[in-house]
């Protein structure tokens, strides 16, 4: 899922305080799981902004709302009326949702309330870790299900490097050496011989190098 983190409150306030009306708008899927951008968080942020506005004597009407996903047209049906009357929107979606709304509502300022941080998993409630960089050419099949693009700080494909010590990376003792994880996993699966196999050079043209990516399904 996409993990995001709320921007510092003062930064959010500075972005929106010049408006007379603001809709604080949650996205109730990925960023709701990380308790940063769901509809509940939108309600809380709206309350905080109202309190700040009152204290600073700023005349701004703040309402809150949200939908399940800000990155797909059909989900906006339930919020048509709310958004139609909005002078500005503070979106708690990831960068995708903010851009989707900006494209959809051409004349309405859409502000981001979150910093989109990474594509990750939920290790435990409230603890999220990065697992994928959407490089476009997945190698997990040959690396024992451990991504060297994301989890090796140097993005090595022939690790571990000399900075690996006791299973940890030289960048930080809190970061596991991805290649140690690859080896441990291959060993556990009885496939350690795979570690010796040469793999073809990775096709980086499918990564970001070619600019924004897209793909279209036939028959839709």
């Amino acid at each position, binding site marked *: 899922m996409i993990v995001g983190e709320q921007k510092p409150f003062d930064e959010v306030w500075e972005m929106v305080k010049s408006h007379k009306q603001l809709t604080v708008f949650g996205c109730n899927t990925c960023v709701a799981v990380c308790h940063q951008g769901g509809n509940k968080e939108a309600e809380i942020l709206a309350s905080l902004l109202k309190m700040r506005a009152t204290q600073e*004597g700023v005349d701004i009407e703040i309402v809150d709302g949200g939908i399940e996903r800000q990155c797909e047209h059909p989900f906006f049906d339930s919020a048509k009326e709310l958004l139609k009357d909005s002078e500005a929107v503070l979106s708690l979606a990831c960068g995708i949702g903010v851009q989707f709304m900006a494209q959809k509502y051409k004349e309405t300022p859409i502000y981001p309330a979150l910093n989109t941080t990474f594509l990750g998993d939920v290790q435990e409630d409230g603890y999220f870790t990065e697992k994928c960089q959407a490089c476009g050419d997945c190698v997990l099949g040959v690396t024992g299900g451990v991504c060297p693009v994301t989890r090796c700080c140097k993005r090595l494909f022939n690790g571990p490097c000399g900075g690996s010590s006791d299973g940890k990376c030289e960048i930080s003792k809190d970061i596991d050496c991805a290649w140690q994880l690859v080896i441990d996993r291959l060993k556990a699966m009885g496939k350690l011989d795979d570690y010796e196999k040469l793999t073809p050079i990775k096709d980086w043209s499918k990564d970001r190098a070619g600019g924004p990516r897209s793909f279209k399904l036939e028959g839709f």
Partner: protein
Amino acid sequence: MEGQCHFLEGNTNAVKRIKKVKELLNMVGVDPERLEFFHLSAAQGPRWAEICTEFTEKINALGPSPIWFALQKKLESTENNKQAA
């Protein structure tokens, strides 16, 4: 009491949430001391009364919140504008 909630983890979750709300209040300039959480059982009526009395005294000592002052200022300004008109 702590760890003995009818809703199992309800009161331990509430403690975490109160901590978070205190941080949020602090962020918007409201003294987090204005919010407190106490563990009590339904059989502790007298202790509940004591806590309410103590907390009321504490809030009285802190005085009105900055939000109240801001709303009061806004109200006065609106009334002055009306009189001027």
